[in-house]
């Protein structure tokens, strides 16, 4: 039997230059004292808030991205999740020796985030359900921490407004804010975007954007769980916790369309949506499909769909139509009308790891990254789509972003929170 070198000529190993960092917005040129890690080889102390699957992944990515880091504190609303989350991180042999979280630094409860942030950390990873993000981010920036912040950054417009203000403060303080909109850190997507923006398919006419996928997990119900606990453990299915599927999952697609539009905001949206497959009460109040037509002042329209239904055709990508051809973003394909198709042949390192590599480098170099503008804009675009679908009426941007409706209870506690109703367009637009 002949031996074979590992994937010696596969596309992933072909050499091609990729513009690393070219799309990262650097807002602050003169970091103040908070950018205290500039050029220093000191150990960066990392804290994790939200110990679910994604939080654990972010922690391992952070520790993998910069070898002179330690995970020193974790927090979760639930003590069992904090403990099992920590165990799962330690289960990764490549980082386990830099996980130094003892029982005194494993926090639970709704105020666990404060305890993690106050535990003498330099870097905070925010990975709770999105509802809590604005409050957590504000506290982290107030305390002068560099933050990795998962998407979406809020579940409502007041939350997005809060995050926008926090990001301005972070810029003034010279703190890095890196968003979990990870496709911005994917080398293949960056190169595809660059070619489109350089005119490979001419002027853009329209973008068809789809996040049509299957259904996701459900963690069941248990005797003894308050309804608050049930909702939190199954947070995907509650608009007040997740922002619905359009924000929680499909924001990746909306973010790519926004990127194509130069991170401008649409002027209006007409939308529809509902729930056809996930009608059982256990699925809370979120929809299982949306269609949104976003209209921009100038340039192409965005025709967007997202779906979480089983047994249906799936598609997750953008088809970008231009005056001189078309392109697909995740497939990394650019097809001019006159000319041969281009496909990305370069390296494909993990975008989840790459964003942490750039994040930690920005801290080390004193060149803070601040993804505030686009993470707020893309989250607002998602909320605008949800509000237009729930309400059943065409919605203008100014009207949408000025919404003062805050989703979720005023106070957090293990109480029997009522089940929120499902929005009925044109009748009861309850979010």
């Amino acid at each position, binding site marked *: *039997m*002949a*031996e*074979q070198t*590992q*994937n*010696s*000529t*596969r*596309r*992933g190993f072909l050499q091609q230059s990729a513009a690393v960092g070219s799309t990262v917005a650097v807002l602050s040129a003169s970091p103040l004292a908070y950018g205290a890690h500039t050029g220093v080889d000191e150990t960066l102390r990392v804290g994790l808030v939200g110990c*679910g*699957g*994604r939080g*654990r*992944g972010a*922690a*391992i990515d952070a520790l993998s991205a910069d070898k002179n880091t330690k995970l020193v504190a974790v927090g979760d609303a639930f003590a069992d999740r904090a403990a*099992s989350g920590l165990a*799962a*991180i330690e*289960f*990764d042999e490549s980082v386990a020796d830099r996980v130094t979280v003892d029982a005194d630094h494993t926090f639970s409860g709704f105020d666990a985030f404060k305890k993690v942030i106050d535990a003498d950390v330099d870097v905070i990873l925010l990975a709770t359900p999105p509802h809590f993000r604005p409050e957590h981010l504000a506290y982290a920036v107030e305390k002068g921490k560099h933050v990795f912040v998962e998407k979406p950054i809020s579940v409502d417009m007041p939350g997005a407004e809060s995050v926008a203000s926090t990001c301005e403060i972070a810029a003034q303080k010279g703190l890095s804010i890196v968003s979990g909109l*990870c496709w911005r850190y994917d080398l293949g997507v960056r190169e595809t975007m660059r070619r489109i923006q350089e005119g490979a398919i001419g002027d853009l006419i329209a973008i068809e954007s789809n996040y049509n*996928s*299957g*259904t*996701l*997990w*459900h*963690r*069941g119900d248990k005797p003894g769980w308050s309804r608050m606990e049930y909702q939190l453990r199954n947070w995907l299915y509650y608009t007040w916790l997740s922002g619905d599927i359009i924000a929680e999952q499909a924001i990746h697609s909306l973010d790519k369309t926004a990127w194509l539009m130069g991170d401008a905001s649409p002027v209006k949206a007409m939308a529809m949506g509902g729930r056809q497959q996930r009608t059982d009460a*256990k699925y809370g109040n979120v929809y299982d499909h949306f269609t949104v037509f976003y209209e921009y002042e100038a340039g192409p329209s965005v025709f967007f769909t997202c779906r979480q239904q*089983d*047994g249906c*055709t*799936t*598609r*997750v*990508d953008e088809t970008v139509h231009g005056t001189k051809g078309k392109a697909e973003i*995740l*497939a990394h394909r650019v097809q001019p009308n006159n000319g041969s198709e281009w*496909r990305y042949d370069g390296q*494909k*390192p*993990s*975008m*989840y*790891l790459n964003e942490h590599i750039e994040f930690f480098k920005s801290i080390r170099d004193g060149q803070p990254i601040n993804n505030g503008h686009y993470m707020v804009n893309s989250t607002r675009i998602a909320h605008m789509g949800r509000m237009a679908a729930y309400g059943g009426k065409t919605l203008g941007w100014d009207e949408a972003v000025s919404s003062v409706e805050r989703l979720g209870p005023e106070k957090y506690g293990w109480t029997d929170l009522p089940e929120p109703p499902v929005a009925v367009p044109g009748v009861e637009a309850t979010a």
Partner: protein
Amino acid sequence: MTARTALLLATLTLPGVAWAELGVSRVKPSEGRYVEVAGVYLVPHEVTIPGAEVTFRMEPIPGGQVMVTDPETGEVSEVILAPYWIGRTEVTWAEYWQYMNLCAVFERFDDAGVRQVTSKNRVDAITAPSKLYDTTFTYDSGEEPDLPAVSMTQYAAKQYTKWLSLLTGEFYRLPSEVEWEWAARAGESPTPTEANTWHEDNADYLTHPVGEKEPNAWGLCDTLGNVSEWVLDAHGAGPLADPDGPGGEPPVRWPTKLFPRVLKGGSAYLPIDESGVAVRRPSDDETWREYDPNVPKSPWWFAHDDAQDIGFRLVRPYAAPSRDRRNAYWDADVARIQKVADFRIDEEGRGERGLVDPDLPTAIQQHGR
């Protein structure tokens, strides 16, 4: 008859060995391929998956003495293969979906409180893969039913063979490396050509519907390309033996760690000169899970462009081991794999555990929809 072949036939009469009936003819077929074993004839046959209008085809492969070169030492040894059937093609999406969809089915069984897995019946339970979070990494070549199923881990492929076995009552498993290569050689060791191989230069970096290329002499398609196929063996050194098994089992270089394991048979992403029957490809689970954002990363799926040419095909031996021995072919062989699967199911609700028996299709009709 050589002494070794006589020994082989003697081992086939050991007690505890189950004899396959499906695909066995008592009379010599007047046409078509067959493999004669001790007065019976193993023949090609179609199998319909119970509860689904999905079929696959198995081709009989003769046993015999096979010369094997150790990839590490170059040492040549002789092994005995018992006769078996192997899939004419790679397992397709149409077939794999029947297993994949069980995650949603078992979830509904849990809601209805039926067919619950307990410590007593867990030996007959499988784990069903978590639902696809982002199909980008799975359906790059499309989701047509006749495309080969791809991106699954070896553990998922093994659980598939457990599901199919417990559902049908027949014993299916992954091939051993020697079995795979013996079947792919088909007595004439074909050279990869444009006519028989989907490879880097003619496949457009896409997998293609199974069975479009010319079959080998024993009727197998796509052994030389399209997707690389899981076999049971570890990649690297190790004894090529299965001393604990009853007679009729293949020699396997059993893995003791997660990777690398062996994948055989070129792919649509690989150059034609890496499509030969002898080529072994090492798995790289760490890289192939890089685009999985959640930890612990899926034990069932690889989320990476580079794993979209990973598939498998089925084997069914003529003489099958006893029931308790079969789990060695189906279940996690490294404790870490099972630990991660249990964590994903019990802590995260991603993936499900469920019982499989011939009544499963009826239960799906009653409760699962």
